[in-house]
């Protein structure tokens, strides 16, 4: 049998043909794969490279350190302190999360509410993401956790930074506070740093108005992550830029004195440099501890703050609106003198009341002051005298004069929430009530009653303007970061010098002449004398019948119905440097506590004399020069 026949030959030939055909097919397929590679890697390579980077590179924000807030001498009013905290990493808790929390719960206090929050946080994150177990631990607690660490699997001690207000409620209304970011905050602000867990932003006060500057800008750590989001390594790091420090004009020593002096009353007080408007102290009592808001207020604490009838959450110095009462009279007098409505020797015969239209306007002194001049009118605060002045001046004059002294407008202080108050006028009444101005209302406005509403800070501004003759405005930020804050050019108050001198003389008589309403509470120390103006503001309507029967003494009324006590002053009377205003809600109880407070505060500030002391180095030579120019 032949091994190799013709049939074999034919099939070998067929095999060779078909194999070459198949080889061509294989070559075509390999070529197609090459073309596909060319398409993916060369043509679309850049696109895929971007996608690969998006996959694997994740930017992690680094929280910036918040700028400090300092007083004029460099005392830290708001700073950052170490926040000792304990974190849990679920995947490292060998016995499970519950067991780990049980163990840590024997070392530090964990309430059921804490536990629920921790478990909720854990369930939202991946297993390797740390969740906060407890924050703001004391050093002792933190040390205890560290001591027990060897058998606390999954527990990680950590030191962060948190806001600290060492002076607590003394500065609550000036500084405000920081608190967790709310969804509305995130909508209003596109700074990505807000998304950092646990990040805090300013919610009130300077913390709010200068939040952007204090906040700084976030750093970015570019990390490589794997498909599960776990960080493999850090690729690059742009460190966070810390926020700017804010140097205030406040003198913390004085602030502390003021707060202690006015404590116990529902009260507001401002102390100002009459030459520049720099605010040296600004207080509203009662207040709250801003640290609470940073850590988190409990519902009980929050309800307590809301329900307190002394309104600790309201900054009365800026947002409290009060009828100025007699403290408004220097403004009316000044406007009238300047407008020529009266002359310095203008006199009125006070009989205890004035009939105007079909209404009787009473003086606070039932039987009248007799013949009374401008000087005595201010010193004794004669209502009938000022009814007459107001009639001569008219509401338009009162309105214009009050505006010149800073009433009816925001003072522009760098603390949010300030209110403008009300200086009524014809146009205002038309716009607000839709009816015409009544001439009788001019009389009420003349003694700071009726529609007139002012803030304690505006009152202090008025005192500073009358004292200096300049249109100063209150400012509380001295240096921001490295830049001294520009002060607007000082302009002369648009009143004649003679008019100002006459009013100053009247205010001097209030405290320094025996007939004055506040003579008993004057500053007796030579060279430290203060000039001022008392005031009280009714919060209830006194009927004609009560006028006839004798007005009920304040002491006999419920607290809420008592008059507000107001006092504005500046010192030294001869060469004014400091201005002060005190408003005590429902506080008029005979002994003029407002005057006594202002007396003590003005004496203290003059003796301490913060304006003579060198302010803390304001960082750069330029800002030092600027600070010197203002000093």
């Amino acid at each position, binding site marked *: 049998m032949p091994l190799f026949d013709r049939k074999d030959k034919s099939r070998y030939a067929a095999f060779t043909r078909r194999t070459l055909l198949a080889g061509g097919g294989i070559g075509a397929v*390999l070529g197609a794969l090459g073309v596909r590679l060319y398409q993916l*890697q060369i043509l679309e390579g850049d696109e895929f490279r971007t996608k690969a980077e998006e996959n694997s590179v994740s930017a992690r924000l680094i929280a910036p350190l918040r700028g400090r807030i300092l007083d004029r001498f460099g005392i830290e009013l708001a700073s950052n302190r170490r926040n000792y905290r304990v974190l849990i990493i679920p995947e490292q808790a060998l016995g499970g999360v519950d067991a780990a929390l049980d163990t840590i719960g024997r070392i530090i206090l964990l309430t059921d509410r804490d536990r629920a929050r921790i478990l909720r946080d854990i369930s939202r994150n991946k297993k390797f993401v740390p969740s906060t177990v407890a924050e703001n631990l004391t050093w002792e607690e933190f040390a205890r956790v560290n001591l027990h660490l060897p058998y606390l699997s999954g527990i990680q001690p950590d030191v962060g930074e948190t806001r600290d207000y060492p002076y607590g409620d003394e500065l609550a209304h000036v500084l405000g506070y920081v608190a967790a970011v709310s969804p509305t905050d995130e909508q209003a602000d596109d700074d990505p740093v807000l998304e950092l867990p646990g990040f805090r932003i300013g919610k009130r006060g300077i913390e709010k108005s200068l939040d952007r500057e204090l906040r700084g800008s976030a750093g970015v750590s570019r990390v490589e992550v794997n498909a599960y989001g776990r960080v493999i390594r850090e690729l690059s790091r742009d460190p966070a830029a810390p926020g700017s420090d804010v140097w205030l004009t406040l003198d913390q020593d004085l602030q502390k004195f003021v707060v202690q002096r006015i404590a116990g009353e529902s009260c507001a007080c401002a102390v100002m440099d009459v030459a520049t408007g720099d605010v040296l102290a600004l207080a509203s009592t009662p207040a709250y501890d801003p640290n609470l808001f940073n850590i988190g207020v409990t519902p009980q604490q929050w309800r307590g703050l809301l329900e307190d009838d002394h309104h600790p959450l309201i900054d009365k110095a800026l947002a409290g609106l009060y009828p100025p009462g007699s403290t408004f009279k220097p403004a009316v007098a000044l406007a009238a003198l300047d407008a020529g409505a009266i002359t310095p020797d203008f006199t009125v015969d006070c009989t205890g009341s004035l009939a105007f239209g079909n209404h009787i306007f009473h003086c606070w002194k039932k039987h009248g002051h007799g013949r009374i001049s401008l000087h005595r009118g201010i010193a004794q605060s004669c209502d009938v005298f000022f009814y007459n002045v107001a009639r001569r001046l008219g509401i338009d004059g009162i309105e214009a004069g009050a505006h010149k002294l800073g009433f009816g407008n925001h003072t522009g202080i760098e603390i949010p929430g300030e209110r403008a108050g009300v200086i009524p006028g014809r146009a205002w009444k038309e716009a607000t009530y839709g009816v015409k101005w009544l001439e009788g209302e001019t009389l009420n406005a003349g003694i700071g009653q009726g529609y007139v509403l002012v803030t304690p800070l505006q009152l202090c501004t008025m005192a500073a303007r009358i004292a200096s003759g300049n249109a100063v405005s209150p400012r509380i930020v001295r240096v921001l970061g490295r830049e001294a804050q520009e002060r607007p050019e000082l302009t002369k108050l648009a009143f004649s010098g003679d008019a100002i001198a006459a009013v100053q003389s009247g205010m001097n008589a209030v405290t320094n002449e025996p007939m004055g309403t506040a003579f008993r509470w004057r500053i007796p120390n030579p060279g430290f004398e203060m000039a001022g103006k008392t005031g009280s503001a009714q919060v209830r309507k006194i009927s004609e019948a009560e006028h006839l029967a004798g007005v009920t003494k304040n002491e006999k009324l419920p607290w809420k119905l008592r008059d507000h006590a107001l006092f504005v002053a500046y010192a030294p009377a001869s060469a004014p440097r400091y201005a002060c205003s005190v408003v005590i809600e429902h506080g008029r109880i005979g002994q003029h506590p407002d005057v006594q407070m202002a007396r003590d505060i003005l004496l203290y500030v003059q003796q301490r004399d913060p304006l003579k002391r060198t302010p803390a180095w304001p960082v750069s030579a330029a800002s030092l020069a600027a600070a010197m120019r203002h000093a």
Partner: protein
Amino acid sequence: MTTTPYVAVRRNFTWIEKLSQINWFFVLLITIIASIGFAMQYSMAGGHFYPWAAPQMARFAIGLVILAAVALVDIRVWMAAAYPAYLISFLLLIAVEIVGHVGLGAQRWIELGPIQIQPSELMKIALVLALARYLHGLALEEVSKPQKLAVALVMIAAPAVLVLKEPNLGTAAILFADGFSLLFLAGLSWWWILPSAAGLVAAVPVAWHFLHDYQKRRVMTFLNPQSDALGAGWNITQAKIAIGSGGLTGKGFIQGTQSRLNFLPEKNTDFAISALGEEFGFVGCVIMLFLFAVVIGFGIRTAMSSRNQFGRLVAIGITLNFFFYIMINAAMVMGLIPVVGIPMPLISYGGTAMLTVMFGFGLLMSVHVHRLVELPRSSGGII
């Protein structure tokens, strides 16, 4: 074709002579390809020999011994062993249906003591051997005779359908492809081929009906990867990103973010070449394709130079089997076809695949060594 004296054909070579007949250039070539695989396994472990590169190297070493051993065995012995091997593989396939373990939702292997056996892998070799043996006995015109063809079709379809039932679509497809290509190369009439091809296309909608849900999902996902970008489409999307992001020259050894950071699923097995594309770019991939083409070219040359039809068909069957692996895996990883579980030969991590590929190359080498052996159509081989 060169004519060789008949005596030479009858001569039995010594072991030493046979060893010298092994094409060591070919062995070097596949060692280079396998080394690319080791490098990728090393890279994907973040620059470590464990857990993948070292075992892979050990397997390749065993594979080389197997290759040499298989190459030294006379081609006539393989011819005699063809039907028994097919039968055993077929029985194992049935066994896997009964006692097979459930792995990845499919019954694919059985355990014999310490080793796991994937009968479907054995069948790829056994089918080539058995079909070659069968076709060796047929003259050219007999191949196209219905009754002869029917036997061949049953030999192909019986194991392929069993594998399809496992279910293992990829391997079943390769079995069909291997079988039909051998029929084609053995000279099956175009009168059979063209109408069948047309019928196959017409049958696609019917076949769709019989696919498993996960297989349908894979096809749907392939057609629109974005429809399920984080689910089944993830594999395709991430593999394309890996390859595409390599650009011209790649990100560098051990610098591939996609593979090292676990964005690639099954990165060290079926998707191993996406890591190659990422780290060595277009240049690396084209070099790899070129090396594969050289291996295939060698296989074709070996087939054409053999003096016996059995050897020719075995050689071309092994070569095509190798090519189908490459084509399906590469096309899948590059997003050209749906995801099927087919590894890249010599590169992907995996024991059974490595050993069957090396066994196949051993057969190829045996054909090469015994290329001058002439066998009559009636021969059944020798034991």
